C-alpha cells in the first residue's frame, strides 16, 4: 500500500470547504488562506494567499486556475496518490480558488504518464457537474460560474515549471518564459492565471473546511501545516507519508525504516543530497524546501552513480532554450563519468563546481538553476568517495 500513515485529506469531507468559502466574500477567502500561512507545496514555497490576491487584483477579461499535476520530479508521487484518492478535494480547491480570484475556468494539467488516472478524474468532474458543484451558478450562487477541464501533458519534465506549462497549454514547445511578468498578471492566453500544485489546492480546500487556525497548529512558526512526502529508495516502508512541517530528516527515516541510510536526497534530482551528519535538519521552507521527494541511499550506495543518474535525467529533460542548462548539464555528466573512472583532476573538478555555480545563477528557469544541486552537494558532502577512484569496472 502506498499510503503509510494518517492523512489530513482523508478527514476532509467533500463539500464542506466550498460551502464555507461561498459563505465568505472573495476577499474573506483570500484572507483565510493568507492567514493560514499556506505556501506552495510544489517546492518553491510562494505564499498561496499572496498569489491569489495578486491574481484577484489583476485586470483581465478572463482569469484561469491551473492545477499543476505535471508531477515529474524524480522521487515524487504524492500528487498521483492525492488525485487517485481525493480528486474531489483537489477539484474543490480549484473551485474555491476560482471563486477567490474571479475565474470561470480551471484546467487540470495532468502529466502524460498518468493517463490511466484520467477516466476516473473525468467521472469525478461529471459527478460534480451533476451535483451543481461545477458549471453555471456553482452551489446556486448566481454570478459564480466555474468549470474544470483536463489537459494531458506530453512527457516533458520542464512543463512542471509554471510558465513552460502555460506555453504547453497554448500549443507551443514547453520553453519557460522570462519572469516577470508572472502568470498572475500575464498567464494563460495573456490573462491572469493562478498555477498551483495539486497538494496546495487540496490543502486550500482543507483550510476552508477546518479553518486557518487548525492549519497553523501544525508545523513550525515559519512553515505551517502538514506536508506530504514521497519516500523511496533504500527504506523498509516506501510510500506516501504525511508529517507536520518542521519534521527532521532523522524522524522521517525512523518512521519509514531507513535509519541506517548514508545519504538522503531531499527535493529529488533538483534538491540537495544530505550526508548522515545533517540528518537533524528539518523539512520546511526555512531549511530544506521540498516538493516532497525523499530518496534514501543505503550504506553500500555509490553517490557518484546517483549523481550520474540525475545528470542523465537533466541532460535529457533540458529544453535546450538557454545555454547554461543546454551545455552545462552534459559537461557535468561527462565530469561525473570521469570521476567515476578515476580520471578527473582536482583542478578540473574545481572547474566543474564553478560551472555548476554559473548554471545556478545564469539559467533561465528552475530546471537549469537547480540541476547542478545534487552534483555540487555530492562533491561537497561525499568528497572522500569522489576523488582518486579506482574502479576498473567503470573504466
Amino acid at each position, binding site marked *: 500500500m502506498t499510503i503509510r500513515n494518517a492523512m489530513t485529506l482523508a478527514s476532509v469531507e467533500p463539500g464542506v470547504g466550498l460551502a464555507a468559502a461561498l459563505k465568505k466574500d472573495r476577499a474573506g477567502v483570500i484572507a483565510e488562506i493568507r492567514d493560514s500561512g499556506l505556501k506552495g507545496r510544489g517546492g518553491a514555497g510562494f505564499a498561496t494567499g499572496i498569489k491569489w490576491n495578486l491574481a484577484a487584483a489583476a485586470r483581465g477579461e478572463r482569469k484561469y486556475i491551473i492545477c499543476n499535476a505535471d508531477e515529474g520530479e524524480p*522521487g515524487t508521487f504524492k500528487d498521483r496518490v492525492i488525485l487517485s484518492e481525493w480528486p474531489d478535494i483537489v477539484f474543490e480547491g480549484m473551485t474555491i480558488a476560482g471563486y477567490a480570484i474571479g475565474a470561470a475556468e480551471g484546467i487540470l494539467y495532468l502529466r502524460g504518464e498518468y493517463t490511466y488516472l484520467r477516466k476516473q478524474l473525468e467521472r469525478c468532474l461529471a459527478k460534480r457537474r451533476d451535483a451543481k458543484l461545477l458549471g453555471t451558478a456553482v452551489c446556486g450562487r448566481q454570478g459564480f460560474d466555474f468549470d474544470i477541464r483536463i489537459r494531458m501533458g506530453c*512527457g516533458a519534465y520542464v512543463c512542471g515549471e509554471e510558465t513552460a506549462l502555460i506555453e504547453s497549454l497554448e500549443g507551443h514547445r514547453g520553453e519557460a518564459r522570462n519572469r516577470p511578468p508572472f502568470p498572475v498578471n500575464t498567464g494563460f*492566453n495573456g490573462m491572469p492565471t493562478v498555477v498551483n500544485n495539486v497538494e496546495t489546492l487540496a490543502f486550500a480546500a482543507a483550510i476552508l473546511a477546518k479553518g486557518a487556525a487548525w492549519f497553523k497548529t501544525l508545523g513550525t512558526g515559519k512553515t505551517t501545516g502538514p506536508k506530504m512526502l514521497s519516500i523511496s*529508495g533504500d527504506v523498509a516502508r516506501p510510500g506516501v507519508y504525511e508529517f507536520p512541517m518542521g519534521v527532521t530528516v532523522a524522524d522521517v527515516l525512523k518512521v519509514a525504516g531507513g535509519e541506517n541510510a548514508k545519504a538522503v536526497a531531499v527535493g529529488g534530482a533538483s534538491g540537495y543530497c544530505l550526508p548522515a551528519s545533517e540528518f537533524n535538519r528539518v523539512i520546511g521552507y526555512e531549511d530544506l524546501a521540498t516538493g516532497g521527494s525523499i530518496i534514501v541511499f543505503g550504506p553500500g550506495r555509490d553517490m557518484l552513480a546517483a549523481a550520474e543518474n*540525475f545528470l542523465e535525467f537533466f541532460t535529457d529533460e533540458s529544453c535546450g532554450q538557454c545555454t547554461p542548462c543546454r551545455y552545462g548539464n552534459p559537461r557535468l555528466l561527462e565530469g561525473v563519468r570521469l570521476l567515476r573512472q578515476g580520471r578527473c583532476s582536482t583542478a578540473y573538478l574545481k572547474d566543474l563546481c564553478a560551472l555548476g555555480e554559473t548554471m545556478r545563477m545564469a539559467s533561465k528557469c528552475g530546471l537549469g538553476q537547480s540541476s547542478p544541486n545534487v552534483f555540487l552537494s555530492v562533491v561537497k558532502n561525499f568528497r572522500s568517495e569522489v576523488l582518486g577512484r579506482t574502479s576498473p569496472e567503470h573504466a
Partner: protein
Amino acid sequence: MLTTQQDTLTRDIGRLIEEHGTSRSALIPVLQGIQERYHTISDFAMQTVADKLGIHPVEVYGVVTFYAFLNEGYHGRFVIRLCRTISCDMAGKEAVARQLRNDLGVDFGQTTRDGRFTLEWANCIGMCDQGPAMLVNDQVFTQVTPEKVHDILVACQKVFSAHAPETGEGHAQ
C-alpha cells in the same frame, strides 16, 4: 470506393479539429489524437494540421519534436517505457532492461520489425515506491522482474490478436 490512407488521415484530423477547435491551444490535443490512432505523426499529418490551424508547418514540427510522447517516427502498437530514474534504477531496472532487450530483440529507441513493440526509456514515471516500473501504452506495471517481462509481452500479443487483423490503415481498431 477506394479511400487512401491520406484521405482517412485527413478525415480523422478534421474530426479532431472539430472536437478541439482551431485555436493554437488545440494543437497539442489534436497531435495527441493523431499519435494515439496512428502511432506516428507523419509529415503529411503535420502539414494538414498546420493548414487547418493556419500556422506554419515548422511550428507543428517544433512541437512534435519537443515532446517525448509525440513522434515523427513510427511507434509500435505497444510502446514500452521503462523508467530509468534513480529509485527504479536502485530497485533493479537494469536487469529488466536486459530481459526486455533479449525478449524483443531490439534495443531502447527501436521498434520490432513486426511493428508491434517499441522499447523506450522513460524519465521518472512517479512509481518510485514500487519500482522497477514501466508503462505499456497508458498502463502501468510495477515491481517488474525479468521473469515477469515475458508474461507482460504475451498479454500484449493477446490483446493484439484479439483485435481485427491488420488493415490497410496499418493499425488495429
